[in-house]
């Protein structure tokens, strides 16, 4: 019976070619606009660590005070004092503190010219927490953190450049003139969004990950400056601590912190710990305000920092309204199409077809057109994604891709949308009075 209804739909489509083509093309455009926007949205809001993101949390402590923060939100990063306190407290199963830094890299053989490269100063847990894949060697130990060891983990890219794809673990490189022993070489690792130093970074979330990771403690011992902006609770908002020691004791916030918490109970406990810590600081007279802390998990953190480009949100909104308008349009056109066939419906009803049969026939007809619209939509979506480079800025465009799920979703959306818009016209068609239709002719 279903096949028969599909055949009927095709036959009636052949009779009113222009109207059918109009509906299908409109559907195609509406659906593909939505899908292109969705593909971009999906790429920019994707979870960089699907297996772990729900267990990774960013602690925030308000050390600025109510008059220096915006909408009562603590600064996105921690001061050195707070970062060290939280890190040393070991209240989570894993924790890391980090900041982005740029280095002058010289190979020890002196063959490659000096390069300037980016990376982060991190702690030992960083690699395990973020599932960072290693090609050779491994990260460093917690003891190396304590010893302020001169060890480094480098990217595959840098390894290829300096050591020609050989295992370089145990060899040395110079960072800002100091010798560092290579502990590990990463596989290609470039999480998108680059979530781990979003708080400090100028990085909007879509820059490539750096090439050099050294112990946080070594970075501090070397007086290595962060590459990015430091928020300070001063009138001008910039730090006036020209001396390094003053900088470490200042209230300027410039350190990203992460903790790994396995269970909801751990999260509650850690949140309590944070509040107690801030309360203690208030008690000591460092804060003159009530504890104001946050503990957000990875996805909430990215949402809070509004990592998704605004263009992407806006295009999602506009294309959704475009689809809505197209659907209003399709309702009208379907109505025209079905009402035109009142005599046919009358005869079918007179020959014994039930209302339910009419419903089935016309909803299937709607679905058939939706399917055709979906196919047009898939073609248009693929075409637009192929041209995405011209539409979106390069670093966003290269993240956007089509896959089977996107294609399936396109067709599904088209069919579902058309069936929904065929509901009212079908209802009207089913109301057709057989006697009335037969009498006229």
């Amino acid at each position, binding site marked *: 019976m279903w096949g028969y209804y599909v055949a009927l739909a095709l036959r009636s489509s052949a009779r009113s070619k222009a109207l059918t083509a109009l509906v299908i093309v*409109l559907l195609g455009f509406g659906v593909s606009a939505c899908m292109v926007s969705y593909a971009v949205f999906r790429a920019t809001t994707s979870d960089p660590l699907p297996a772990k993101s729900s267990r990774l949390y960013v602690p925030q402590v308000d050390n600025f005070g109510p008059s220096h923060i915006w909408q009562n939100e603590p600064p996105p990063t921690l001061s050195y004092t707070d970062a060290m306190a939280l890190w040393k407290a070991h209240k989570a199963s894993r924790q890391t503190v980090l900041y982005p830094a740029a280095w*002058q890299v010289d190979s020890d053989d002196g063959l490659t010219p*000096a390069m300037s490269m980016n990376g982060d100063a991190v702690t030992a847990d960083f690699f395990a927490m973020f599932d960072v894949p290693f090609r050779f060697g491994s990260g460093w130990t917690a003891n190396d953190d304590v010893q302020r060891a001169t060890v480094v983990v480098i990217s595959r890219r840098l390894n290829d450049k300096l050591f020609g794809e050989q295992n370089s673990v145990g060899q040395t490189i110079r960072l*800002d003139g100091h010798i560092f022993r290579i502990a590990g070489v990463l596989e290609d690792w470039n999480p998108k969004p680059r979530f781990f130093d979003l708080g400090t970074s100028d990085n909007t979330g879509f820059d490539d990950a750096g090439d050099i990771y050294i112990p946080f403690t070594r970075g501090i011992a070397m007086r290595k400056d962060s590459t990015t902006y430091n928020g300070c609770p001063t009138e001008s908002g910039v730090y006036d601590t020209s001396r390094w020691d003053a900088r470490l004791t200042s209230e300027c916030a410039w350190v990203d912190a992460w903790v790994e918490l396995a269970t909801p109970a751990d999260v509650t406990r850690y949140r309590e710990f944070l509040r107690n810590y801030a309360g203690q600081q208030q008690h000591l007279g460092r804060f003159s305000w009530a504890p104001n802390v946050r503990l957000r998990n990875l996805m909430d953190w990215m949402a809070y920092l509004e990592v998704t480009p605004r263009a992407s949100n*806006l295009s999602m909104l*506009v294309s959704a309204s475009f689809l809505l308008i197209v659907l209003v349009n399709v309702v009208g056109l379907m109505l025209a199409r079905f009402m035109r066939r009142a005599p046919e419906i009358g005869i079918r009803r007179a020959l014994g077809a039930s209302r339910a049969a009419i419903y089935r026939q016309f909803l299937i007809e709607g679905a058939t057109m939706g399917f055709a619209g979906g196919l047009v939509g898939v073609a248009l979506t693929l075409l637009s994604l192929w041209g995405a480079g011209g539409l979106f800025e390069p670093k966003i465009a290269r993240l956007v891709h089509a896959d089977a799920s996107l294609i399936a979703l396109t067709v599904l959306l088209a069919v579902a949308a058309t069936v929904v818009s065929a509901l009212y016209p079908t209802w*009207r068609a089913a109301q057709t009075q057989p006697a009335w239709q037969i009498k006229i002719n």
Partner: protein
Amino acid sequence: MALTRTFMQLRPIVAALGRHKVATLLIVLQVALTLAVASNALFIVAMRIVHLSRPTGTDEAHIFVIRNGWTIGQNATQIDANIRTDLDTLRRVPGVQDAFSSYGYPLAGDGSYISVRPKLKPDQKARGPFAMIYAADEHTINTLGTSLVAGRNFRPDEITTFGPNDKISPPGIIITRSLADKLFPGESALSKTVYFPGGPTRIMGILANLQGPINITRSSDGDSVLVPAHYVDPDGVWYLLRADATDMKPVIAAALKTLQARGDLRIIDPKTGVVTMVQARERAYATDHSLAMLMGIISGLLLLATAGGIVGLSSFWVSQRRRQIGIRRSLGATTGDILRYFHAENFLIVSGGITLGILLAILVNLGLMKVFFPLPHMPLYVPLLGALLLWLLGQLAVWGPARYAAKVPPVVAIRTE
């Protein structure tokens, strides 16, 4: 005459529409939604285009920038000496018109800027206006291709140095006109004293226009301050060069070669080390550009879809009313009457949609303003222009079906189909 005949037809048109409530309502709804979405989208496009076509105040076509990183272990004195030597040699490179060193450059947009909030009194409590600082020398104005509207340029003997952690206290500064107007509204800022964190300084010149390194502040992009100093940061410095010709490839190569002659002093990234202002503009406004383009395309499609819908439904109505049209024709209605009937009907429906749509458009704008911060109120003429467009579109869309209707011969009235 034709108009009065059209008006006389309005009553039967309204009566006829009453019998097609749902279909009429659908078109009204569609026109309203289209107007609301398209006028907001096109408004955003217009705002973006205004935003991204702002001039930097510089001779962009001829300027390029070199990011020159210093190798480690050089102190401020050495770096200052390096900058002086580099600038001397760079200015002598054939094809280079002029050059200077600074921190950041117009349209850099990556956070490389130093800001200051100049105050009018040393003990002023309120924050001064936000402004961005360029390290500059006597060649800056000529390199950028901007011009002084008052006062004088720096002299070579006035150029000092400052580093990343210094509190700036230059003896004199040059500021842009927009900043001058903010500091001293309604009076001349020339020779007035303002206070930096490091102490007082005198305004010795006023520039016509010069954008700071970031282009996303709400109203301070053009508020720049030139400080007569070389920026001595162990990290590095930016060299801004103005070439004679717009084809800058040979000049860039020559400039890099000159610098590489003393290559052990510096690191210039082979990929990202050189940026032309044309590239910088493209990068700085990439988001605005893509937003404007997307909105434009979708608005276009939207209008097409609406037109398509009107054509489709009107044709359906015409085919449904063939008999009535035939009767009217045989009772003496001219083809013009039939044409006018359909055009008037369309005008009525679209007008209904527009009334609703303008209301919706304003609501959508208010909603968007809450979500997307730097969006201004949409002036009323935007939806009104959109309304005009939709009326036109409606009339155009109904033109085909109306002509088809007018061709219905009177004989249809007595024929049974």
